[in-house]
């Protein structure tokens, strides 16, 4: 599959942006500067960027609680995401969400689900809408390995299969459901094998390789455009952070973590690949990092100095006021 040099560098830039954003955010929580908690996606950068790069602007993405990377990859400003983590009125949800339920309707990203697996049925409904309207929009539902054990997964994949819906079920298998390793929460070796139960194609790809993820999702989009229905893609990666801010992941074997960090860090891996292929020079890489670093610093400044939402607006938008017709 042909990927232009420019596209490759853009993907790199996106991955760096996610990594730096999450690094910084984690530090802010550790320093006790922020209330609540967040789920950073260290190690998931290739999945977020590869999958989302393969979609077109009109496609719909249902994200989850570990969603900062998905929104950043789609182009949501780090300023607005950071401000949301700070609960400020300039945040993506104007302070009503915090880190977990981000929204960006302009980029086809409805509210992310903080309930594990909670978006899978919703995404199926979005695909159903496409089917009934006969538009060519593809819906992407992103969830983790833990979510494949919840009933929504089964109900939704079965329904999508019976109705041949235009949807990609993208499992970011980061090996851990909160603090439980996959071997302790499911017997199946490849999550993509579960697709067999729904007579849909299932594919496992290296989730630490952004181009492999991109290619798999791009192919899936093409299949869907040919009317070939839903597909399950498993991206195998590793959660390089704890489950949420404040969790150092002490339950993980040190050697396991070291191995993944050294050999399969998606950002590092991709950088080396781009160096080797002479797509990126050291100078360019450094420049990108510096630019992004600055962008993230500015996002924090923006978040800190933004206003809190006005208390009197608390009851707004519980209900929609307008009636149809």
């Amino acid at each position, binding site marked *: 599959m042909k990927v232009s040099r420019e596209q490759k560098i853009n993907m790199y830039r996106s991955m760096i942006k996610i990594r730096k954003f999450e690094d910084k955010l984690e530090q802010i929580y550790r320093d006790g500067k922020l209330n609540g908690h967040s789920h950073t996606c260290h190690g998931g950068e290739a999945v977020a960027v590869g999958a989302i790069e393969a979609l077109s602007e009109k496609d719909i993405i249902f994200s989850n609680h570990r969603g900062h990377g998905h929104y950043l990859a789609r182009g949501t400003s780090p300023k607005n995401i950071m401000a949301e983590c700070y609960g400020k009125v300039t945040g993506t949800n104007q302070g009503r969400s915090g880190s977990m339920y981000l929204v960006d309707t302009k980029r086809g990203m409805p509210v992310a689900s903080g309930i594990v697996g909670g978006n899978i*049925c919703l995404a199926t409904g979005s695909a159903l809408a496409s*089917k*009934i309207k006969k538009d060519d929009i593809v819906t992407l539902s992103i969830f983790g390995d833990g979510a494949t054990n919840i009933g929504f997964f089964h109900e939704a994949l*079965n329904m999508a299969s019976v109705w041949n819906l235009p949807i990609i079920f993208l499992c970011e298998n980061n090996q851990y459901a909160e603090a439980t390793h996959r071997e302790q929460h499911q017997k199946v070796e490849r999550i993509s094998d579960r697709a067999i139960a729904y007579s849909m194609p299932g594919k496992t790809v290296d989730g630490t390789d952004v181009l492999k993820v991109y290619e798999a999702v791009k192919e899936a989009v093409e299949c869907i455009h040919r009317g070939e229905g839903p597909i399950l893609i498993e991206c195998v990666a590793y959660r390089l952070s704890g489950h949420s801010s404040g969790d150092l992941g002490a339950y993980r074997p040190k050697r396991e973590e070291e191995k993944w960090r050294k050999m399969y860090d998606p950002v590092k891996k991709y950088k080396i690949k781009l160096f080797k292929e002479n797509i990126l020079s050291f100078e360019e890489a450094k420049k990108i990092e510096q630019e992004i670093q600055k962008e993230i610093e500015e996002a924090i400044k923006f978040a800190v100095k933004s206003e809190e939402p006005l208390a009197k607006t608390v009851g707004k938008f519980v209900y929609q006021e307008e009636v149809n017709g």
Partner: protein
Amino acid sequence: MAKIMYIEALKSALREEMRKDENVFIMGEDVTRYGFGINRGLVDEFGPDRVRNTPISEAAIIGSAVGAALRGMRPVAEIMFVDFIMIGLDQIVNQAAKMSYLSNGELSVPMVIRTPEGTEWFGGGAQHSQTLHSMFMNIPGLKLVIPSDPYDAKGLLKSSIRDNNPVIFFEHKQLYTQKGEVPEEEYAIPLGKAAVKKEGKDLTLVATSWMVKHSLEIAEDLKNKISVEVIDPRTLVPLDKDTIINSVKKTGRLLVVDESHVSGGLQGEIITVAMQEAFWNMEFPPRRIGSLNTPIPFSGALEKKVIPTKEKIKEEILTMFSD
């Protein structure tokens, strides 16, 4: 005016709204071929894309309705028995009810979940006879509609479909075959307006769903002794507090009858709403009737001990005038 059955009134609302708006569609278990018959025949006019049989997957039915609604469709999802709604509860409570708020009004979920509840000799027992609407009153972001006759059923279903919020539309199994006058011409009943089903001056009897019929019959039976005002809130969210409060101020007596279990139920909520405004008008402490705090048993002998019956309502009213 023609008298038609409650199920026919519902069907006619569905048909009219589906003709009017191509985004309206129906989904649920066996909606084209089985069940209580509300949807029967609609597939012939609208086709299987818009009258859609689903697997037995309540979470996916409700969740995919939410997802389709987020994309501008207006799904009417049928849950065959309200008891089954529990499988899809996350999708209602954590998803549907939160979308508008979390997106600062940018996203809306214009969907209706239609579902029958209640019993009175329906014979469904503990997992097919419950009355669960009260628990949803504790969830901001949902609208709750509960019509008690064919006229209200049609007018309220049309408004529910046109509403841009998630609406749960509670029907009662015993109401399905009840007949009532429904005009031929177009009408809709706004959500949030109670109906004074019968005017009276001695006692305010707030009743919902199947209990309205009992209440009206009792009011008729007692008319020479006690003048009973029967109020049907028709929608629980939004709740027409004013109509209830004004009635209680006038009568000085309040009895609330609802098939929910009494503990934490709608009855207590309505009494509180009324007492905050009308306490000094009261001539007798407010009373409530609901199902006892036990599961619904199968045996008729047991069931009638648990649920509100006509006899229990009448007895309670007489007690309230015993002084």
